[in-house]
């Protein structure tokens, strides 16, 4: 019974993530006065990629392992989530630190795969990806830590609940910071610097194609959905009606709204340079430090 809860977590994310990409593409297209692909297009893309040849430029086992690890670790993070306000079955052997490290592991797999390919474009992409992880992981961590210092527990359900428990100054500041950082978490413009198609040709993914690329693509979709879910569960947790099914429905609608917002921002902003983005991220880190500081003081 309880194990099915984990399966529900996974299925919910696996089923919905490509659809959200469809929404993103459609909204972007409309802003650019195009028709845009149908909403189910990303599912077709994934199926098509799975059927193609698997090109391997490295010959390393690391190159082959990286997509598996990336996909598995983001799903592991998802399995731990207290979806729909219900504590996860795995909550007894995991907590916030496990979640953060699983997310890092997923980013890590992408860049070790990129380095394994030996392609210099991938190297540039990997370097940028790692810098982004370094500067942004603290923002995510501090959002959850704000919940921890309020709730006094590292349990994910209480921590996410703790974030919105006191709607004081720290809550609003952290929410603002998270919203701005969200654009970078989901690597859309103006922060899609690690991939930057027109500049470094999708960076880390340049040598990946076919099923391996499908896994990375899926990982990226899941990651985007994960970060949006975290915003909804953390900052908008008080919207939940209480019944698990209704909770899930409300969360889904809120995630959709958030994706429209992300797409609008993404379609209307040009990309930053890496050094500009670093300064931007540093400001976000400092602001979230202030927010946690305020939270500890009880504001």
């Amino acid at each position, binding site marked *: 019974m309880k194990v099915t809860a984990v399966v529900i977590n996974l299925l919910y994310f696996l089923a919905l993530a490509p659809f959200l990409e469809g929404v993103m593409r459609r909204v972007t297209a409309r802003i650019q006065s195009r028709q845009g692909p149908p909403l189910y297009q990303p599912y077709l893309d994934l*199926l098509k990629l*799975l*059927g193609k*040849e*698997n*090109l*391997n*430029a490295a*010959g*390393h*086992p690391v190159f082959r392992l990286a997509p598996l*690890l990336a*996909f*598995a*670790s983001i*799903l*592991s993070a998802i399995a731990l989530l207290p979806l729909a306000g219900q504590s996860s079955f795995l909550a*007894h052997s*995991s*907590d916030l*630190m*496990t979640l953060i*490290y699983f997310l*890092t592991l997923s980013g*890590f797999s992408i860049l*070790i795969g990129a*380095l*394994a390919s*030996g*392609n*210099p474009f991938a*190297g*540039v992409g*990997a*370097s*940028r990806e*790692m*810098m982004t992880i*370094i*500067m942004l*992981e*603290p923002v995510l*961590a*501090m959002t959850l*830590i704000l919940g*921890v*210092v309020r709730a006094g*527990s*590292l349990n994910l359900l209480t921590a996410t609940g703790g974030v919105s428990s006191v709607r004081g100054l720290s809550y609003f500041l952290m929410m603002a910071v998270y919203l701005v950082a969200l654009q970078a978490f989901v690597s859309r413009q103006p922060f899609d610097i690690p991939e930057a198609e027109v500049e470094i040709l999708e960076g880390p993914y340049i*040598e990946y194609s076919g*099923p391996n690329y499908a*896994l990375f693509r899926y990982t990226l979709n899941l990651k985007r959905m994960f970060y949006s879910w975290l915003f909804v569960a953390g900052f908008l947790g008080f919207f939940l009606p209480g019944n698990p099914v209704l909770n899930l429905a409300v969360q889904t609608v809120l995630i959709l709204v958030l994706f429209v917002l992300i797409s609008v921002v993404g379609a209307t902003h040009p990309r930053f340079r*890496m*050094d500009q983005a*670093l*300064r931007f991220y540093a400001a976000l880190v400092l602001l979230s*430090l202030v927010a*946690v*500081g305020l939270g*500890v003081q009880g504001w």
Partner: protein
Amino acid sequence: MTGTEALWLSLLSLLLSFLATIFLGKRVHLVRLAGTILISLGCFFLAWQGVMILGTGQPLELELKLAGIHIPVLIDGLSALFLLLLSVLALGSTLFAYGYYETIETKIVQKVYLALPVFIAGLVGLLTVDDLGPGFTLAWQLMAVSSYLLVRWGRPLKLSSRPALVYLAFMESAWVLITGAAFLAKGYHFGDSLAVIGEKLSGSGSVATAIFLAGLLLGFGLKTGIFPLGQLWIPGAYSTASPPVSALLAGILEKTGVFGLIRIFFFVARGAGTGFDPDLWGQVLVVVGTLTLFIGTVQAIKQSDYLRLLAYSSIGQVGYIVLALGSSLLAWHSGSPLAGIIFAGAVYHSLNHGIFKSLLFLTGGSLLHATGTRDLNRLGGLLAVMPVTGVLAALASYSISGMPASSGFVSKWLMIAGNFLAGKDSLLLTMAGIVALFTAAFTLACYVKFFGLAFTSAGASWKLKREIREVPGSLLVPEIFLAVICLSQAFLPAVYIRLIGRSLATTEGFLLAGVGPESLRANPVGLRIFEGQALLAAVAPLAMLVLLLVLAFLARWLRQSAGAQEVRVPAWLCGYQDLNKNNVYADRNMFSDLKKFFRWTGANNNLVIDDEELPGSVSREEKGVIS
């Protein structure tokens, strides 16, 4: 065999090894063989003694009389634990040295085998003598002089004499600080045991106690490498000594400093009574630790010399331990049972870091042995030719980055999670915890760089003139030995936490005695380490590993679901050219914007000098970087 006998037998084996080297003279093969066997024997007796003390739960106390001087010796649970770590690391390094010194010139090998047993004996002394007087001086000087010589003989003299001298100078100033500070205790007699010093401190006023503690913090801090003292000697010394020696320096020499800090702040200070302000000293340790871990790790990221990278990262990792000691003091002062958990984390991290940093230095030694260069810019793609070394380096890198289901995860979890929970009403602890978590990402970046650019990627086959082969088994066996222990630390955390609990229970006069091993089992603030037989978060790595593996199999099934075939293709560079030595991604480009952004943290000089190219003759320019 009792504990005392084992200690003497171990010292005797080390002495015999020293003598054997003298008698065997130029027969260098025999020197290496005899040295390896005798030192290993010494390690075995040392481990035996540690096990005896932890097993019986009886501390060992004796007093040595040497020419009218009394030296108090105390081996309690804490010493035994560190002695166990010493014996494991010394065994690993000695076995590695056997293969490593095969190709080194005779004169150096002879000298190294004279200094190595003395060095190990000095370390044993530091962990066992119980004074800050004659016994401490004897042990410290044995350790300092022998390791100075070992550092000096690690590279051609032109390169090594300066860092070695700097190392000796700092070791001697640390000695002056430590032995000198003891005289601040009222009525101090040169040679008093630590417990007596603590009692005498209580009558010497709070100012004298504060200066005493500051002196010892600086002295032992110099040795552990706290900011900014560590930066002065650690990078030079660790990257100059030959890798098996560096493995000992980073693995255990540094930890004897941690051991000293624990002895002072958690034992001696207890006796000092009201003169000791745990709040103040806790805050000092937290601030110093946080600075150390952040700056050390950021500096590590800038290095292209992988031995220097490992050295700077040692500073960073020790920062975690110092931070945890400080927050443990603070938590204890506010009456939180988290103090015990954080303290256990600090000791656990000392053991972990000892093992995986030694393993990293040994794999670094293998790299140096096989490629002859210490420059990451010139390496790449070695996994294909050195698969075993590559896997071992990956394991150690993964562990030190603290990824889930690794030994680093367990100890970092205990320290950082404890910090957050104890930081519920302390801004300082929360901020320190955040910096520690932030720095974990830097650590990861460091080791992605180390592993990624040496073993994956591409380049070594074009940039190095020699043909590269996997190192011989004599170098791999000790690495595998350490790797197995590293894995056990990841998957049997309950065993190690019980071991730490047991060692603390066998240690008298422990500050946190009330929140010792017993309350680790309790349920403070919603955080449980033991829940019946089922274990939580940090202590449930297997559950997380199973989860990860199941999902990886799902991913693999998905990848194969349409029956895609794998095709080997060349790297695609926009169709203009093939991959060659002019367009591989070299180390200096990695994280260039981030390095610029953190320029203010120092250690920006990233010049790598290999042994065959002496300073002055180097003209390898830092070309423009790609960001």
